[in-house]
């Protein structure tokens, strides 16, 4: 019996290790790029946007001449489920596939450990969605960020409360994730600095659907602004529905994670009049129009991070093309040199690997996100 068991183990292990041997059958030269984003789980819609944005970028890049020296560009979309362990596992998987660069991840809590692994192996990583400061503040050489930073978004949001909404008091709610709590704490700190009174800061948990208790509290306190810092549009939509039903009078201000057409689809009337801060994208530029036309035809409505993912992938591909090699230092040098008008914004990286933030306030009006106020220019007209 015992012998048989040991024998079985030897066989099983042999079989398992065969399964992991990478298949290198194709002789054609392929440039491999990975994306990391949650394709399943509660944040799957944003993660799918990231994947689709990257696919679109490769499509466009191929039409504009492709990558010299390579027959094709292949994208490996990996599912992180917004779980740090899955992020590390998929980062290792991507390294095994010998990708030259990675676009991702979505949740800051996934990006941080995954970037440690990827940077340890000298693979450039560009995140289209992780706004936490620590992503680029740790001094990793090959970490770049396409979207804005939380410590830019919080002051912008507070400035909007003070100047745009003329608020004197605020009530803050977050759902205890790296992203949402970091932002909520930033807002609280900035409010104190700018002289807005924080009447309360409560938390809900991830995966909650019932927010009636905390909303009742907010209604009783009745601050001028109800700052809602939630990861993803889904809890945000549920929260505004319940807030409307309960008759919350405060103005609701959200952040970039709820810039997602689904927020309005689910929230319907309740979403009307909700404010949010999000990186400004000039939708009248030819770059954006061309992207929007192509993207909506294939994948439908453009989510919050599709444009950033498109730009991140384009940056990577452009840098590889300009460098003429996949050497990470050369790619980095080229990325730092880039200076062009992307789809989401003007692309130019600073020494830390950030590409600057352009947060403005939007308002939901008639089922659309409408630019409402900007820190530089004041009210949008």
């Amino acid at each position, binding site marked *: 019996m*015992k012998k048989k068991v040991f024998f079985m183990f030897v066989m099983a292990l042999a079989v398992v290790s065969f399964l992991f041997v990478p298949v290198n059958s194709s002789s054609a030269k392929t440039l491999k790029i990975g994306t990391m984003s949650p394709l399943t789980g509660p944040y799957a819609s944003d993660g799918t946007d990231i994947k689709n944005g990257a696919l679109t970028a490769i499509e466009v890049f191929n039409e504009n001449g492709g990558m010299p020296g390579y027959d094709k560009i292949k994208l490996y979309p990996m599912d992180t489920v917004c779980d740090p362990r899955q992020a590390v596992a998929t980062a290792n998987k991507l390294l095994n596939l010998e990708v030259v660069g990675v676009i991702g991840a979505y949740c800051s809590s996934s990006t941080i450990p995954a970037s440690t692994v990827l940077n340890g192996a000298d693979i450039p990583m560009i995140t289209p969605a992780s706004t936490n400061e620590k992503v680029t503040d740790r001094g990793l050489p090959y970490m770049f960020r396409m979207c804005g930073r939380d410590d830019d978004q919080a002051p912008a949001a507070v400035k909007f409360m003070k100047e745009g909404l003329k608020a004197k008091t605020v009530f803050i709610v977050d759902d205890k994730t790296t992203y949402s709590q970091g932002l909520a704490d930033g807002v609280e700190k900035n409010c104190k600095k700018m002289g807005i009174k924080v009447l309360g800061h409560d938390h809900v948990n991830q995966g909650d659907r019932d927010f009636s208790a905390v909303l009742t509290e907010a209604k009783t306190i009745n601050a001028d602004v109800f700052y809602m810092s939630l990861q993803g549009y889904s809890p945000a939509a549920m929260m505004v529905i319940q807030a409307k039903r309960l008759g919350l009078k405060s103005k609701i201000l959200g952040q970039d994670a709820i810039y997602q057409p689904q927020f309005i689809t689910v929230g319907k009337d309740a979403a009307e009049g909700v404010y949010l801060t999000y990186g400004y994208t000039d939708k009248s530029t030819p770059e954006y129009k061309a992207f929007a036309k192509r993207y909506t035809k294939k994948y439908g409505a453009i989510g919050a991070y599709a444009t950033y993912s498109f730009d991140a992938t384009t940056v990577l591909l452009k840098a590889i093309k300009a460098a003429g090699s996949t050497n990470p230092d050369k790619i980095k040098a080229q990325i730092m040199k880039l200076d062009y008008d992307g789809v989401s914004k003007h692309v130019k990286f600073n020494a830390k690997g950030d590409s600057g933030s352009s947060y403005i306030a939007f308002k939901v009006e008639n089922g659309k996100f409408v630019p409402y106020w900007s820190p530089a220019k004041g009210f949008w007209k």
Partner: protein
Amino acid sequence: MRQEYKKIWKNYAVGMAWLLGLLWPMLGIHPDGTLTFHRTLTVWLYIFAGSLICVLFYITKKSRILSGVTDPLVNGAGKLSDISKALPTSVWMVLLFVFLLVYPLVNGRYAIDVAISVLLYVCLGMGLNIVVGLAGMLDLGYIAFYGVGAYTYALLNVAYGLSFWLCLPLAGCFACIAGCLVGYPTLNMRGDYLAIVTMGFGEITRIVLNNWMSLTNGPNGILGIKPISILIPTFHNTMSFETFWVKKLNVLYYFVLILAVISVIAVTRLRNSRIGRAWESIREDETAAELMGVNTFRYKLLAYAVGAVFAGLAGAFFAARMRFVSPESFTFIESCMVLCMVVLGGMGSIPGIVLGVIVLIALPEVFRQFALYRMLVFGAAMIIIMLFKPDGLIPAKRLKIQAQYEKKGETDTNVS
């Protein structure tokens, strides 16, 4: 015999019709008010074809229609196991060890990463096996101890710069204390009440880790944990020690391998000891065990404590490997997964658990190519394994004897 096939086909037909009824409302009614059948039928036909092959395979195997083909195969397999018998166990053991030692040298980093996961979960499975498999207490909050171990190393290392080897026993200690804290109030509960209370403790641990900002940094987790370090003597002029940071995965693999091997040996020894027999007697009948002079209170608490130690040790390694811990890694579903490994492999059976861990960790990784279908296939695989091997992949010997005994008599479903 024919009657039996008729029954199989009848059940199969009813099942497929049932499935069609389940699929259509989900796939065929569209929000714009149209009804379609095309997509439902396509999906259904795929499933139909797949399952038909399985049923045909099952029937041919049962009716021995293809005995001309299968018999030589079975004989061949028999011969293979003859070969396995021809050599002594020690040879196979040595072979297995050689294989485990060579593994990281021939494989890429992804395979090593998966292997490290497997080894860590082997350690976890061993610990839970003491609580569930030996002492028979259903524990759904086991992952909390893993979290305690991981956070112990993370916090002590980041705040005080303590080295891994100093933190490892401390992680075990803290997990042990946590085990006693959870174990003490739950000792008078039985069966599923115990399960739900342990689940409660597990969730409380996670929520506290997530909310105690000043200590654990909440959802942001703890960054900048140092990897394992070892002192290597160098002989330049005089002998001195140099710190070597284990950043390479394949070196880490060997450390985790040692941990897993130690835990396997420890649990084997424990099971065959006086304590192990006491645990098994509690599992079989607590009242009878108490009458026979087993101090059930002390042994149950001991089971919790020892089980937690293994989880704590594994947790410290987990923190050293990820170099980042956050509460998201210690959710309820993780506890369920460890329990699945133990039950799927065969409760109380050590090779079974190792196999269970390999199946449950390696399968989802192998299934990665199915992309979105990954977890669907995984769930189905779990059900199918349980349907065909309800006692686990490699059932424990003592349980096997008991199962044979029970088959003769009347089975009682109310045994916990």
